[in-house]
């Protein structure tokens, strides 16, 4: 038995392709990226060691700071939207839907699987004001809310909100179903006995179900936060960062620095900032949930 399960030849055959691919195209590039961030210019053209210059630039680059601030705002709104609306919907489905649960689940999840690019394009049309009203403006028009009609993604004051709304729309189904399957798995007897003791539904949610779902909340926050920090596809396809730089995310900044202006080194430094942001926020969430636990 042991001889068969420690067969060296089989082991190599089974694991080497995966290890090699993963090392060459994922691990090496990540380390390489760190190395790049100490250089300026483009490899093969004007690549030079520049020490900490890129990192010093990170601190003085006001365009980057604006982009990071925007990202923080976006993360806050979208994460809270996705997780709490998802949780609320899961609670409601569990409470009120008896028949057709599966239908509800399948429908809620549709936006989640769609390509973000197509979703971005679709919302461009939904938000459109010219050459004809898009879906939203047309609907506002017919219900008599004409004063609300605006160029949703062309206007500086609404563009970020429009982007957030779209990404909440796209993501909320995932969190809804994550919470829903967790709620179903909760031990039923605790809730039953609380009901018998006369606890209100609201009280049951707040004092029993929410504490029991704490690990799920923690995971949902982490998943949503890292997803939002990395936002790229949806912003590119909805607004291309505009109007002006209103919705210009750090990932887009990094992409442009590297591939439009050929500053591979500075691009890599920005990529590292994105990574640090992910690690930092993830560990903050981890700490918050640990302390209260």
């Amino acid at each position: 038995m042991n001889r068969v399960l420690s067969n060296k030849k089989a082991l190599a055959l089974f694991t080497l392709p995966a290890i090699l691919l993963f090392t060459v195209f994922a691990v090496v590039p990540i380390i390489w990226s760190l190395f790049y961030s100490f250089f300026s210019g483009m490899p093969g053209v004007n690549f030079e060691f520049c020490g900490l210059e890129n990192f010093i630039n990170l601190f003085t680059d006001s365009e980057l700071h604006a982009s990071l601030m925007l990202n923080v705002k976006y993360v806050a709104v979208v994460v809270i939207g996705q997780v709490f609306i998802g949780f609320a919907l899961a609670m409601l489905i569990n409470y009120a839907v008896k028949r057709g649960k599966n239908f509800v689940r399948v429908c809620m999840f549709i936006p989640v699987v769609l390509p973000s690019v197509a979703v971005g394009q679709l919302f461009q049309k939904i938000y459109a004001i010219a050459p004809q009203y898009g879906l939203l403006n047309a609907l506002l028009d017919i219900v008599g809310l004409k004063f609300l009609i605006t160029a949703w993604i062309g206007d500086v004051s609404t563009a970020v909100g429009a982007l957030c709304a779209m990404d909440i729309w796209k993501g909320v189904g995932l969190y809804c179903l994550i919470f829903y399957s967790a709620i179903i798995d909760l031990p039923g007897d605790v809730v039953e006995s609380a009901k018998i003791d006369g606890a209100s539904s609201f009280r049951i949610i707040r004092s029993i179900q929410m504490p029991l779902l704490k690990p799920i909340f923690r995971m949902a926050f982490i998943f949503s936060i890292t997803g939002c920090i990395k936002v790229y596809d949806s912003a590119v396809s909805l607004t291309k960062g505009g109007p002006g730089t209103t919705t210009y995310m750090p990932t887009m900044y990094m992409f442009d620095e590297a591939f439009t202006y050929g500053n591979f080194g500075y691009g890599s430094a920005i990529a590292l900032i994105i990574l640090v942001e992910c690690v930092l926020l993830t560990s903050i969430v981890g700490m918050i949930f640990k302390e209260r636990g």
Partner: protein
Amino acid sequence: MTAKKGKGKIISKIIIGIALVLSIYPVIWLILSSFKTTQEFSLLPSYSLPQGLYLDNYISAWTSGNMGVYFKNSIICTLGSLILIVVVALPASFALTKMKWKGKNFFNKYFMMGLMIPIQVALIPIFQIYKNLNLLNSHIGLILVYTVFGLSMTILMFTGFFESFPNEMLEAAVIDGCSIYGCLTKMVVPLMGNSIVTVLTLQFLTSWNDLLFSQTLISETAKKTVQTGLVMFSGAHGQVDWGPMFASMAIGVLPTLGLYLFLSKFMIQGMTAGAVKG
């Protein structure tokens, strides 16, 4: 008490109903709009239904919009990565759970690192590596990165399956003289249909929905994928010419949507489990 409860239920049902409409209506609107003529777009409000099945939008998106080419490229890259990921990840996951070797723990953690790292961090060096290996503008190049960046999740799913796979069955097979290869191909693989389908649906989404890699690693129009094509198309004609734009979006969305409607159970299971574990 019961009256109050009844009211609460009704309100909840209404809210869920609204949420459902909000989830599906934009998608339905997208499909319906792809059948509208230019006149219908400019004369009727955009929520009105199409007056007939006007297919010219699809024809012009497919030919002059180049979606036909992009579609073919997306299919090749997606299918390629689907095959490659199962071939690479399945035996590796088997070795990572059932076989006996020293590096087992280390490599389990090694692969799980991939769940944490944003793609952007690896993007610039990958571009550079591809330039040196002549992999830019190639299908193989995209297939490789799609596979590599789906690998961590796939291994997580497969190892999860193998952990619940009874050792006794393996032992019995080995005692009966089955080789390690036989165990894997004749006994394990046939039993893991569900996990394979789940992994494939997830990997399909990763590959088909990708923008970042294809935008970075592909510059020739003839090699672009549907999602990059869409971004270009919207800039070029999409602002004014809504019909073909909607048809291209539909072309980008329908494969995902079709697959989802058939395999929704697997996709939901895969994505929610992936989030919980990752």
